[in-house]
């Protein structure tokens, strides 16, 4: 990722800022300004909670350039509580333990080795929701 692209996408990468369509109320992540559901303009910012569940996953044994050092790693589609799917790596979990439907939450992590412009890329990953925080949530 280039320096410019990194700066441009910082809000979505570091705090899951997306959009909500003022016309059909669909929530959009990543932000795209034009709603793919109704075609109307959708520039209202919406912050996602970072909570969701694994929708699908894959263990990457052969990696593209920049990710070779990390294999094997788990990449996933996360179904966010608010609706949209998001692509991200899973962290703090092994391939044996991950399953479709596993509750996960967003964390910020370094995602790849130094890229263009000597930049270290930080972005979101998802990790299993810790057992005690789930109990707390249930108690609330």
């Amino acid at each position, binding site marked *: 990722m280039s320096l410019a692209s990194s700066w441009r*996408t910082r809000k979505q990468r570091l705090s899951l800022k997306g959009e909500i369509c003022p016309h059909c109320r669909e929530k959009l992540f990543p932000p795209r300004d034009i709603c793919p559901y109704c075609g109307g303009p959708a520039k209202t910012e919406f912050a996602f909670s970072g909570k969701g569940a694994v*929708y699908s996953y894959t*263990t990457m*044994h*052969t990696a593209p*350039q920049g990710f070779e050092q990390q294999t094997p790693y788990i*990449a996933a589609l996360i179904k966010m509580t608010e609706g949209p799917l998001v*692509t991200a790596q899973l962290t703090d979990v092994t391939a044996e333990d991950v399953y479709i439907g596993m509750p996960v939450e967003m964390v910020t992590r370094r*995602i790849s080795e130094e890229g263009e412009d000597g930049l270290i890329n930080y972005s979101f990953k998802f990790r299993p929701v810790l057992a005690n925080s789930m109990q707390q949530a249930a108690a609330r």
Partner: protein
Amino acid sequence: MRDVCIVGIGQIPVGEHWDKSLRELGAEAVHLALLDAQIERPEALIVGNMLSGQISHQENLGALIADFAGLRGVEAVKVEAACASAAAALRQAYLLVAGGVMDVVVACGVEKMTDTAQDNTTAALAAAADAEYESEHGLSFVGLNGLLMQRYMYEYGYQHTDLANFAITAHRNAVNNPNAMFRKAITAEAFAKAKMIASPVCLLDSAGIADGAAAVVLAPSTLANALAKPKVCIAASAAATDSLALHDRHDLLELAAARISAQKAYAQAHTHPGEIDFFELHDAFTIISTLSLEACGFAERGRGARLAMENEISLQGRIPIATMGGLKARGHPVGATGIYQVIEAVQQLRGEAGANQLAGCRLGMTQNIGGSGANVITHILERVS
């Protein structure tokens, strides 16, 4: 719109051509296609290619291939639609001839993939996905197919090996294709033991990448009458798009663009899946074969894998696919693949498919898919007597 025929075909065997450059591969395919058509000079050349800029640091392929094919001076341009680049080139050529703008146009797909290291090729191919939100997280193209396959198996209760027959059938058919890369049958045991790339996608779920070039010559039906070869017309040419990113799909397990382009193609050709004699589908991954069969109406949702399990995709089956080896075993030189598919369909319809010849076929369908279903181009070819 005029009726358009494919009057010439030319292909280079798919493989690792260390001794040939991008331009040589493309020029040779164009030359062979013009020889087959017995035509000296087309009015235009449309080149399909995906990776030349990234791998060979070469763009401007229209002029380059035209020049080296001995056609300096003709109008020529490159079109790109990821792995569907070749079918996109064919469709542009088709539109020129069908619209009456030109009489003879060549479409050529060319790809040179072996001039670089494997991880570089993997990264280049990932450019077909959403760079900012998929590739950025370490998803390769294979990884995206892993996500599709895992969800498919989960929703419909399949095992990984239930999809093995897609690969086994393709390899069996490639044995008899002199232009195929892997002319060797594989067993169910080999499939089950194959190396994982991005689980559940293993090495034998995915098509081999390679060098290749293929070209076809298009002309109006009236001009084709003068030629000696059996006449094959383009009965339909249709394209549709979907989101690049899987996470942006409204329904992950439906290839909506495949469905839409197939439906448009059936309408143009006044036909339906029941009348299609064979289907050269985009079997870059076994899961894509499955989803493509479902999207095009050959199987109900969640039942695409059943067609493979029940052997309905073999040369003797209800809907033969990959009749000359498909992407899986003929090989997948990405930006050239769509025209290999069309050439194989022409061979079947002309009766030139050798040991894999399907008896009495009249309608063949081809489908070229760019990205994980983002750009889908479907053609229906018809033998006209």
